[in-house]
């Protein structure tokens, strides 16, 4: 079973040389720490920045330079800043190669719910609806089951949707799964020490799994 950093490490292996990538808040943010050495990747922050760098050194924070999580950050050589309309222009016109974001639920037909729980304070969708509606490749990073032990990989989402038919890949603490175009979760890899049966029990949506599904390698 993977911890949050393990999930981030596994997702980082999906990032290819030359990719422009948008990372959501939470586990996706950790992916930046594990981008393979020797490849060139540019991180986009949807408030209006390409070429996001690491956090600044203490004392060098700049109130004018933040990411979409409102954290102080730095820029890397070759970076650019722009307004928020232009930022979503490059998202809508699919200039961003990969979007990685968290989710509360994903359905077997690729729907995602990650912004609203009825009865609880709603903070808003931020840029998530724009990202999932336009991105050409989306990977969801999330826990396989919620705190109550219920599967988050469902036949149909129960929470209000963020987007429909858009998720292609999910990485959880238990597994890597593809969402098939015709519907259903295809098990691709198991986390170290996790059995196919364990994953099957934790997945409430339709799971297609080969008993010989390989274990993932994350280091």
């Amino acid at each position, binding site marked *: 079973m993977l911890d949050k950093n393990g999930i981030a490490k596994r997702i980082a292996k999906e990032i290819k040389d030359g990719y422009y990538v948008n990372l959501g808040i939470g586990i996706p943010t950790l992916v930046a720490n594990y981008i393979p050495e020797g490849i060139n990747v540019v991180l986009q*922050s*949807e*408030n*209006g*920045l390409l070429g996001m760098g*690491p*956090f*600044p*050194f*203490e*004392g*060098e*924070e*700049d*109130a*004018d*330079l*933040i*990411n979409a*999580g*409102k*954290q*102080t*950050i730095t*820029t890397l050589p070759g970076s650019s*800043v*722009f*307004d*928020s*309309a232009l*930022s*979503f*222009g490059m*998202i*809508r016109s699919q200039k961003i190669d990969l979007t990685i974001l968290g989710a509360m639920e994903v359905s077997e037909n690729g*729907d995602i719910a990650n912004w609203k729980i009825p009865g609880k*304070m*709603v*903070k*808003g*969708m*931020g*840029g*998530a*609806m*724009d990202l999932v*509606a*336009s991105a050409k490749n989306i990977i969801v990073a999330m826990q396989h089951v919620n705190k109550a032990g219920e599967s988050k990989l469902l036949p149909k989402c129960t929470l*209000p*949707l*963020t*987007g*429909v*038919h858009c998720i292609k890949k999910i990485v959880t603490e238990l597994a890597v799964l593809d969402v098939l175009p015709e519907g259903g979760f295809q098990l691709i890899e198991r986390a170290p020490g996790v059995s196919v049966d364990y994953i099957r029990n934790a997945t409430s949506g339709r799971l297609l799994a080969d008993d010989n599904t390989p274990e993932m390698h994350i280091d």
Partner: protein
Amino acid sequence: MINKVVSGAIEAIRDIEDGDTLMLGGFGLCGIPENCIAALVKKNVKNLTCISNNAGVDDFGIGLMLQQRQVKKMISSYVGENAEFERQLLSGELDVELIPQGTLATRCMAAGYGMPAIFTPAGVGTEVAEGKEVRNFNGKDYLMEYAFEADFAIVKAWKGDTAGNLIYRSTSRNFNPVMAMAGKVTIAEVEILVEAGELDPDQIHTPGVFVHRIFQGADYEKRIEQRTVRTKN
């Protein structure tokens, strides 16, 4: 050159009245028009509709206006940093319309570009789409979203000149340029105000034609919401 300079925030917002619709630039607390917000709090205009990506925090930004119950309706994409906001929302004192961030930015842009509506895929198949026209282009569904109408757009830039030309700094640019283009009246506050001719025309982000009033602000706090750092080792 037409001179757009006013004496300060109080003069700049002099004709904002109860019930007006305002656009306020900024993302979180980054690039917000601090001086104009302080003047609006002092003037205590009420029943405002505010179009702004966020709603400030309890004791800063639009949060200061919420404390005085000046805001009737917020149109935002994310409002999670403000306990007083939550209280007013749950008690029904405050009306909130949450819309996707890109839709928010592009509805501002459309207004500034003189276009009545846009088509965006954001929100298709979700509750955001309820009651909206859906059009299919090349096999994909899009929602029709209208350009915003705002009585005033209030923006913050880094540098400006007496002709109203604006230059923003780093990610404090965010919503400011598109809102600057979208107001019936646009008010810009800047950290540094110079004479027309001192800014390089090639470097200007917002041409002065969009700006009706400009002034050099004072005492900028420029608060940081999430101070994240690494240590040298």
